[in-house]
């Protein structure tokens, strides 16, 4: 099919493919052309056949009649009579020449009109009937039927008929047929054009409506008032547009509602954010002024304790000195708590600058600082190497100080104190752990662990601020990690935590911890 279509040229092929109207028009036209040319051909063929039959019959008859007419003349050798018979035949229409031959084929007489070129001639010949024998010559006169045997013929006639008039008639017939076909075709084409137009108009209209609908105009309607299938289609189309319009309206309303809601929400968020920011600022300034105002008297207390000891130490007895020391120690404890509170706050405020850290080296460094502080304690550290994390140096250091500090603190009094650091891979996560064989705690109170100032041990037994784990938890969660503890009283505690994974680096990139 495409090869046939391609014969029409690319533009027309495109039109034929795209336009229903063109396709319809071409189809109908081709059908009319086919039918009308078929009819014309049949008509012409029939005309031609009838005429040619008629001519053959007439010509044969003419020759036969001439043969009969000249029979006696040939038999008798009367040339005058032969020519007279020939003249009689010549007088018939369209006869161009008449020739009469004897039995031996010798021309006895010939009459001819001048031969024309460009004219078709048809030759008719017939034998002149003769006698069976000479004795039966009498029969000839009474006109006994010839038996048809050529042996018995006395000669032959040859009649040449001019076919030009017949051909002209035939031409005329063909012309008429062609004219009729052309007229029929012309009317047919006009009718096909109108039909195609009228049939394609509603479709084009529907198509235009659909295009308008696609471009967002939902007020269009297909104005087709026929009761046929196209009318039904248009009706369905119109109801579809109405449905779409309704749905769009609902959607727009919902969208508008959503937008309003969003605006209100944004407004609310903005207000809340402003409130929060202001609260945050207030809290910050409160935090500093509170820690200053609370700390300043403590500092003075310590200063006067020092002054008292230095200047009046000599006149106080042991009990007096002890009291002064107790006052100073109490002040120190409060100072530590205040520092821890401030730290807790600063963790939240700090701008993080995370990088790759060798956690193993940091743990070793913190452990070394503990050993240096309390060289008399015997604690064995078991540190897995090359544990890399990605985090803020200062905060991670602080977390390790607190976690190892706890391990260090709670293993006090154990002769075989061991603190282990390492990591395990579990479900794609790198879980670090710090394990001690210290005092441990009762898991019943686990929930209280990470709250500031919640203590699971007596302060005299294991001194501390009660803020350490809260600090660690904040640091871990600021890194997007998790922390949890497992403990058993008298057996030890394991603290697990997850930090962002770091890459192992070549060189001194992770060695900048020494502070």
């Amino acid at each position, binding site marked *: 099919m495409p090869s046939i279509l391609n014969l029409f040229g690319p533009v027309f092929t495109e039109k034929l493919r795209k336009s229903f109207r063109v396709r319809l028009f071409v189809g109908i036209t081709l059908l009319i052309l086919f039918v009308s040319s078929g009819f014309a051909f049949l008509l012409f063929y029939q005309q031609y056949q009838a005429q040619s039959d008629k001519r053959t019959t007439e010509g044969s008859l003419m020759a036969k009649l001439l043969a009969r007419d000249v029979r006696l003349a040939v038999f008798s050798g009367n040339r005058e009579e032969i020519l007279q018979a020939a003249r009689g035949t010549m007088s018939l229409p369209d006869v161009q020449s008449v020739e009469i031959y004897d039995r031996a084929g010798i021309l006895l007489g010939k009459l001819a009109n001048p031969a024309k070129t460009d004219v078709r001639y048809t030759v008719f010949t017939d034998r002149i009937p003769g006698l069976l024998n000479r004795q039966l010559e009498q029969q000839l006169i009474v006109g006994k039927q010839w038996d048809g045997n050529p042996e018995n013929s006395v000669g032959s006639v040859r009649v040449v008929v001019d076919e030009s008039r017949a051909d002209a008639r035939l031409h005329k017939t063909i012309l008429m047929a062609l004219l009729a076909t052309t007229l029929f075709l012309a009317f047919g084409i006009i009718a096909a054009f109108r039909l195609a137009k009228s049939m394609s108009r509603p479709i084009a209209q529907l198509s235009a409506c659909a295009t308008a609908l696609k471009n967002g105009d939902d007020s269009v309607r297909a104005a087709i008032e026929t009761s046929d299938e196209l009318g039904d289609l248009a009706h369905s189309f119109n109801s579809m547009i109405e449905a779409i319009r309704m749905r769009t309206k609902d959607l727009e309303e919902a969208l508008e509602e959503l937008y309003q809601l969003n605006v209100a929400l944004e407004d609310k968020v903005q207000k809340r954010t402003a409130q929060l920011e202001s609260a945050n600022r207030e809290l*910050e*300034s409160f935090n*500093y002024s509170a*820690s*200053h105002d609370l*700390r*300043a008297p403590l*500092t*003075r207390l*310590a*200063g*006067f304790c*020092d*002054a008292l000891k230095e200047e009046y130490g000599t006149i106080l007895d042991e009990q007096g000195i002890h009291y002064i020391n107790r006052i100073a120690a109490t002040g120190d404890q409060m100072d530590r708590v*205040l520092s821890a509170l*401030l730290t807790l706050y*600063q963790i939240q405020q700090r701008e993080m600058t995370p990088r790759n850290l060798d956690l193993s080296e940091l743990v070793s460094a913190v452990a070394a600082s503990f050993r240096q502080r309390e060289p008399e304690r015997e604690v064995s550290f078991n540190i897995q190497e090359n544990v890399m994390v990605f985090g803020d140096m200062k905060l991670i250091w602080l977390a390790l100080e607190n976690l190892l500090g706890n391990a260090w603190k709670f293993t006090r009094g154990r002769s075989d104190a061991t603190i282990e650091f390492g990591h395990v891979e579990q479900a794609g996560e790198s879980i670090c752990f710090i394990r001690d064989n210290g005092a441990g705690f009762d898991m019943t109170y686990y929930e209280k662990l990470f709250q500031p100032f919640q203590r699971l041990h007596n302060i005299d037994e294991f001194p501390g601020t009660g803020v350490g784990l809260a600090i660690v938890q904040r640091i871990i969660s600021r890194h997007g990690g998790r922390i949890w503890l497992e403990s058993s009283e008298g057996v030890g505690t394991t603290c697990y935590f997850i930090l962002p994974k770091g890459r192992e680096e070549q060189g001194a990139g992770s060695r900048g911890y020494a*502070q």
Partner: protein
Amino acid sequence: MKEIGILLVEDNDDDRFLTMRLIRKLPFPLRIETAKNGEEALKRILGENADPLPSLVLLDLQLPKISGISLLSSIREKYSQSDLPVIVLSSSDNPRDLKLCNEMGISGYLSKPLDPAELQGHLEALTRPLRFSPDSSAGPHPSP
């Protein structure tokens, strides 16, 4: 050894007493003046009787009325860090204030209670005869 003039700006009587008690114990010939607030300090440094200038100002940031920060900025409008070194005293100050101080130029930061050894280090740096870069050894110490 030349006498070192120190101006201590401190509003709290107890703190002033304790700080002076510590400074006096240092092994330097010292002339200690005190100011109870920003106005007194400004009058002493920028007023008519400014001469002779103190060699060092010990400044508490938490002062009534004129704050330590604005006092420092007034001083720095007239005297550079090498002309008049300032050391900030504080118990617990906002890191933002400390950053401001550093930008304006201070020789150091001492947290209360004062560590006599630390203060002694600052004074030694101050009295060193040849000072190519007077404040490099006593750079600011931000809180950990």
